[in-house]
């Protein structure tokens, strides 16, 4: 079968999958970075118990596979009266898990900020919240761009697990195509190439943004 014919038949299927994967990954990555910032704020501001709580949260998510929160939210939310769409449940699970990793990445970058800046902020009379928002967070995010890029790539690949809760993203489309056509591996090889493309694209975006905002 020629490529044109092939693309005409299967193109839309892959396009649907690609759209779901990209949209879910984008939303989850944004949510995970925001959630990581919140966890960092709690760790820095809520005293010893806050730090201990965040530590426990991070350890829990670091030592369990992401499929568990995916299943937990997907199966449990309807039972407690929250019949959210599967894709929202899946994205939420990815946000909870990756937010834990991201808060650790950001914590590492806080240590790269010169202590003098905290003294300077205090001597200017900046309130703690403003110090965090205007001094700490912008620098931490810029320092963390390469590590955040790595984490985003991991998140992007983990969206494939959402096929387990019947979301029609790339991996699910490949599975359906394989079962419909009986062709053993063609669909998965195409999907693997599409993932490679998405992963490489993500890496390029993060590298470019790192170059663009790197000061000094």
């Amino acid at each position, binding site marked *: 079968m020629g490529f044109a014919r092939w693309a005409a038949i299967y193109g839309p299927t892959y396009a649907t999958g690609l759209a779901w994967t990209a949209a879910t990954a984008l939303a989850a990555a944004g949510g995970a970075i925001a959630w990581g910032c919140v966890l960092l704020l709690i760790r820095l501001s809520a005293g010893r118990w806050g730090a201990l709580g965040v530590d426990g949260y991070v350890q829990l998510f670091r030592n369990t596979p992401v499929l568990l929160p995916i*299943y937990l939210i997907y199966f449990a939310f309807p039972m407690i009266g929250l019949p959210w769409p599967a894709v929202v449940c899946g994205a939420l699970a990815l946000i909870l898990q990756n937010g834990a990793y991201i808060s650790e990445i950001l914590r590492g970058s806080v240590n790269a900020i010169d202590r003098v800046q905290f003294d300077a902020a205090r001597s200017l009379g900046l309130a703690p919240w403003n110090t965090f928002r205007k001094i700490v967070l912008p620098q931490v995010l810029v320092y963390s761009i390469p590590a955040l890029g790595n984490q985003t790539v991991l998140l992007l690949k983990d969206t494939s697990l959402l096929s387990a809760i019947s979301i029609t993203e790339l991996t699910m489309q490949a599975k359906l195509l394989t079962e419909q056509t009986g062709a*053993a591996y063609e669909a998965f090889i195409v999907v693997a190439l599409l993932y490679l493309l998405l992963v490489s694209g993500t890496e390029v975006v993060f590298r470019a943004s790192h170059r663009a905002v790197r000061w000094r």
Partner: protein
Amino acid sequence: MPAGSLQLLAQGAIVSLLLAASAIVGGTLLAIVLAVMAFSRLAAVRAGYRVYVYVVRGTPLLVLALLLFYALPALDLRTGPYIAGTLVLIIYTAALFAEVFRGGVLAIPRPQWESARSLGLPPLAMFRKVVAPLVTRYTLPPYVNVCVMTVKASSVLSIISVWELTLAAREIIERTFAVFTVLGLAAAFYFVMCFGIDRLGRRLERHLALRGFAGERA
């Protein structure tokens, strides 16, 4: 939760651990070959290494698993999910381990190479007495990290019907709807395995520490 569920989950945890253990052993062996390729004199061999790492790290584990799961029977290899699953975990962890080892070799300080060469050590002795001991110590923390990742990654194999902890949990949930208890217990099993590996790694790190060498790390 009906009686017997806890035993099922414990059995699943043992299967997960066995899957991870065989993937770690097989992956380490394959990674050593790959790391040697990374330092080959032939550009084509080095390119082969880079392509392997790029492809395996750039595709989701689930896609690799499904690819093997469907493709192996089509190639007339009736292997079943366990072999396909172990194989894909080995392929996946080997890429991660190889990158760890490559970093460890690059971290060896230049004077170590020079003194080994000036002593006239033959290649095998150089590997055994200089490269291996240093790389082991440099790479132990990231190596242990990958081991923990392998335990977690084995859960993905539940989707290609490898019966292990996650699939055991899913089956019990579908029968009993005891979502919180079952997933909580499964999480506890995973936590104990991963956290245990992490702690073991740290003890080994202290055990292997060379006195007075830490500062020389390049």
